[in-house]
């Protein structure tokens, strides 16, 4: 009997179809040409988006994965193609984003010979992937891809890389595909320890001032509804980390703000006043904790995380709950008593009012005609009703957006949190739109970060993706300048920036664009770009030397948060 054989390259595509992949971001090159040749026949099944740089591809799939909740898929060639992925892999690992990257590799007989475009991508990517492997035989391709998809999206999600040699892509094999559902040495779904949850519930029920801090884990485990039920039943105030924004509606009465270095006054101060701190799906990043030795020392800490190595890593948990957030929240909600905590919640509200008043006073003192970043963000938030997908880069505009955009929808905040990768926003916004085509996607970017990956305007041009780009131009690398002002005696070492004419630049890519400099133009300009069909770039000239406050200086305790 005739058994039809297919090539390794075709097996790659067949395997991806079996994993329901419908969108791939990539860039071809010598060592991945057989896969691109096979892709030519699958263009009606999978949508491949040609980026302008591999870093653009990986940030795009990060955006895609985070809005869609699906695994992002990247193709890149060997050597420089693969090394250009490294920043994105590191970003996805620290921000728990599920990705599968397939890189081409030189033929297996050339491995280790310094062949053209050969690099040790397995060695280089090992510390920045959840798992990686090299495939040198066509018949090993389906199992490697199955394993990759299983690992990327289970447990604490993360990026995975498969390096496939050119001879494996050309080789022939009999194709069959079996999804991976189990690996002996890998246990992604811990069973909830009932006793631990009971102990947590007991602490919560006795607490006078319980405080709930949530992270991206809520969204990764699709536990938004369970979180809402828990917060409403227990009456506990909820604050969010940077990556957790959107997991709990920001217009909810129990929501008390954004945690950390540039977070809100109330949740930072109250961290050191609560009696029980319930942390769910967050990892006590140093930007959240400030000085760890003075963080929530008075409180009993309950820490729920799916990643066992996060528990007791930074903050010792009195009640560790190694579990998926959804499972733990369901059980916890059954066990907690119904409460209001009205007086405690009022303390947050008073602190919030104090913060708003102080910030207004500081602004009034300046009496500046210049536009401020927060005005722009508040206006975007108002016009989009807090329901857009907002993608930010890294720096002052990122903190301002986190502070002033009212995230009312889950999976709507896409930013580079742990790694702080400048240049993330533009490509991530492109991917975010592919992941959530029905949503308005707004990329808010600084003048510095925009110029790190602006070549992706070419991807927008070619793929006709609808992304609204707002550049907040303060002619400085603002966050570094702020630190230079506060901690380096205003020695503005290489932070002033001269930029090209962004409007002309956008028009060269056939993207509508405008620039505004005054407050009176703001609302009309934003309405215009947000109602425009298709991509639009708006450059907003903002104050040169605005600072982001509140601020917890490095090494200070969260209770030492400065309002000015």
């Amino acid at each position, binding site marked *: 009997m005739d058994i039809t054989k297919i090539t390794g390259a075709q097996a790659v595509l067949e395997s991806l179809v079996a994993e329901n992949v419908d969108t791939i971001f990539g860039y071809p090159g010598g060592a991945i040409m057989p896969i691109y040749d096979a892709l030519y026949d699958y263009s009606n099944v999978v949508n491949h988006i040609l980026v302008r740089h591999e870093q653009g591809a990986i940030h795009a799939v990060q955006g895609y994965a985070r809005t869609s909740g699906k695994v992002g898929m990247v193709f890149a060639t060997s050597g420089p193609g693969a090394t250009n992925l490294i920043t994105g892999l590191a970003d996805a690992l620290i921000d728990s984003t599920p990705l599968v990257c397939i890189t081409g590799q030189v033929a297996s007989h050339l491995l280790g010979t310094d062949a053209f475009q050969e690099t040790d991508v397995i060695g280089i990517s090992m510390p920045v992937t959840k798992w990686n492997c*090299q495939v040198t035989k066509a018949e090993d391709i389906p199992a490697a891809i199955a394993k990759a998809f299983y690992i990327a999206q289970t447990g604490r999600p993360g990026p995975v890389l498969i390096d496939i040699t050119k001879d494996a892509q050309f080789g022939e094999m009999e194709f069959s595909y079996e999804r991976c559902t*189990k690996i*002996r*040495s890998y246990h992604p779904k811990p069973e909830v320890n009932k006793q631990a949850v009971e102990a947590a519930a007991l602490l919560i029920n006795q607490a006078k001032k319980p405080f709930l801090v949530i992270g991206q884990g809520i969204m990764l485990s699709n536990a938004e509804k369970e979180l809402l039920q828990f917060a409403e039943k227990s009456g506990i105030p909820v604050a969010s980390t940077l990556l957790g924004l959107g997991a709990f509606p920001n217009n909810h009465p129990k929501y008390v703000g954004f945690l950390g270095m540039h977070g809100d006054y109330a949740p930072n101060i109250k961290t050191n006043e609560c009696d029980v701190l319930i942390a769910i799906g967050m990892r006590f990043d140093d930007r959240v904790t400030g000085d760890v030795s003075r963080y929530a020392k008075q409180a009993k800490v309950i820490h729920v995380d799916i990643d066992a*190595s996060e528990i007791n890593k930074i903050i010792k948990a009195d009640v560790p709950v190694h579990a998926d957030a959804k499972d733990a929240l369901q059980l916890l909600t059954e066990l907690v008593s119904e409460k209001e905590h009205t007086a405690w919640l009022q303390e947050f509200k008073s602190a919030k009012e104090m913060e708003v008043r102080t910030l207004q006073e500081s602004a009034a003192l300046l009496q500046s005609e210049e536009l401020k970043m927060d005005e722009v963000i508040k206006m975007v938030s108002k016009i989009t009703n807090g329901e857009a997908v907002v993608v930010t880069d890294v720096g002052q505009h990122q903190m301002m957006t986190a502070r002033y955009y009212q995230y009312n929808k889950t999976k709507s905040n896409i930013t580079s949190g742990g790694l702080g990768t400048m240049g993330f926003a533009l490509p991530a916004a492109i991917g975010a739109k592919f992941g959530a085509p029905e949503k308005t996607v707004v990329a808010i970017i600084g003048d510095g970060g925009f110029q790190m990956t602006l070549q992706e305007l070419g991807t927008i041009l070619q793929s006709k993706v609808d992304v609204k780009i707002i550049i907040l131009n303060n002619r400085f690398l603002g966050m570094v300048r702020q630190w230079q002002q506060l901690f380096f005696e205003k020695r503005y070492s290489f932070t002033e920036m001269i930029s090209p004419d962004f409007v002309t630049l956008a028009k060269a890519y056939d993207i509508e664009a405008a620039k505004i400099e005054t407050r009176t133009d703001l609302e009309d300009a934003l309405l215009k770009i947000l109602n425009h069909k298709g991509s639009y770039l708006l450059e907003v000239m903002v104050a040169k030397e605005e600072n982001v406050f509140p601020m917890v200086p490095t090494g200070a305790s969260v209770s030492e948060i400065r309002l000015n």
Partner: protein
Amino acid sequence: MEKTVTVSVFTENSIGMLNRITIIFTRRHLNIDSITASESEMKGVFRYTIVLRTTLEKVNKVIGQIEKLVDVLKAFVHEESEIVHQEIALYKIRTNTLTNGDVERVIRENHARILTVDPEFMVIEKTGHVAETQLLFESLKPFGILEFARSGRVAVTKPMKELSTYLKELEQLS
């Protein structure tokens, strides 16, 4: 407080495991004193024995990161009192330097043994803890040591729980 600890890691037999494990130490600026790897009592399961000086707090966090590796089955940290361990050392010396009768004394006193005698050189083997293999090294030094090699530590634990029991527990988890 820093102390000598032994880390045992049980893994699947996949390419690059040694690298995956050691970069976890590198990232935390921890220096490994010795490392050995070989197949364990279970076919296909490899055992790494890593010795280093650090604090228990630090090493416990390292264990968490090692166990997070997809191909790692289980990792343990042991203090000196919890294990039985051994190293092996080989000493190559000129045959003629020991013909005056001292060879017998050195071998006897150190409970060492001669592996081979060649007209030009001989190889002495000694197993024991580092202090013991080092003592023999010092005794042989006056005769001139041509080559010396000492292995990393191999260790088994004192508790009676077997690896297969851990593996069964892991099987039940998934």
